[in-house]
């Protein structure tokens, strides 16, 4: 724990927008009996802020393998280019409530992304922190190590606003029901997995 805290001091921090935060948690809320995985996108930051997470693309629920993720990433990169955004990494929520571990394939994907793009973020859901009304994600930068991917803790902060209330309003408003992930889209191509019409319920 102390080692993680020391790491956080040197890693800079990551900011996450209300939109990205709420969408990722709605994905987890909708698929509460399965693990969830998605891609985080945004901009590389400056002045101590290493990354600004602006949006997310929900990918899968349950187990995943490379082909689905690779195809989705190809499409996401094209969509990001239109908005001057880049793929920053992934978010993941485990199946069990107290599980904060990182699946092996996700670590490998993160390391590959870091090799390609210079940095790779992984946000892992922490349900204890979510229940306490704090930041629901533990942040890690993933790097390729000698014996496999290496995770280094990083602080994740809200970019702005009262996200807890927005999240609660979205859940009450049924926003989770209309959120679609890439896996849902492959089952029914008429569903929009980019969630272009998604809106936050501010009040």
């Amino acid at each position, binding site marked *: 724990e102390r080692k993680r805290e020391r790491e956080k001091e040197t890693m800079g921090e990551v900011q996450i927008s209300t939109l990205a935060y709420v969408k990722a948690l709605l994905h987890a809320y909708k698929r509460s009996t399965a693990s969830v995985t998605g891609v985080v996108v945004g901009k590389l930051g400056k002045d101590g802020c290493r990354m600004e997470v602006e949006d997310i693309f929900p990918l899968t629920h*349950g*187990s995943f*393998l*490379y*082909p689905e993720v690779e*195809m989705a990433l190809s499409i996401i990169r094209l969509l990001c280019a239109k908005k001057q955004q880049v793929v920053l990494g992934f978010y993941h929520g485990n199946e*069990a409530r107290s599980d904060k*571990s990182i699946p092996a394939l996700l670590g*490998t994907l993160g390391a590959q992304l870091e090799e390609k793009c210079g940095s790779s973020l992984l946000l892992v859901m922490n349900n204890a922190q979510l229940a306490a009304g704090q930041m629901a994600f533990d942040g890690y930068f993933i790097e390729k190590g000698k014996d496999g991917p290496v995770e280094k803790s990083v602080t994740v902060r809200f970019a702005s606003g009262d996200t807890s209330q927005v999240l609660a309003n979205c859940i009450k408003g049924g926003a989770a029901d209309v959120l679609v992930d890439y896996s849902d889209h*492959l089952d029914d191509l008429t569903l929009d997995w980019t969630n272009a019409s998604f809106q936050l319920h501010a009040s």
Partner: protein
Amino acid sequence: AGLDIYDARIVSTHFDAIKGRFPNSKRTLKLKATVLEGQGHFENEEKILKAILKDEPTDVVARKRRVAMLKSQGRHDQAIAALNTYLRCFMADEEAWLDLANMYIRAGLIEQAVFCLEDVLLADRYNMHMFTKYADAMYTQGDYITAKKYYVYSLSISSGVRNIRALFGLCQACSVLEITKAAVPQTQNQRLFEWGERTIIRHYLTADKTKLDTVVTALMSLRPDDATLGNSSKKKK
């Protein structure tokens, strides 16, 4: 159902009713173990399951509940070991093989996941989704030739049903094989890629034209240099 959404009132009301009606039933005892798991009382749950299995070692439900308990606790290695032990006795349980495959995938042990998926395929020979999943596992392992074969097989048993995962997987596998110049005839990769691409485009034209441009551009990015495709380098509209 109450446990799935964890509504404590539904769980306690209905469990009390069942316990009142069937106080000495083993099914009631197993239900109690499940309730304890939902409440996070894993030690008490383990005691009940151990007692049931001591009395009846072949109780399938109790054995599977023990695996679920270990998964709930995040003891994934022990859950894998327990499910392996179960499958040594009950090797025809297709659902258990699939569950074990997913656990191995989570642990990044794709070779072991492939072994489990092979048993699922033996039991379910006409399930295109399982053949696609097997091909995905092969692709993840880096065996693109076998992945391509199984994507093709999955598509051949689809019988006209949309099988978009296999189509994308086929294009991806053909693309990698073409780029790495694997020991297969080039024309086969090109033809299969183009067939897969055309079929995907046809599906998107029917389902959602707004996504078509992005998907076509993404598929184009999978193509190696146009020069290697010979005459078939024209871009699709």
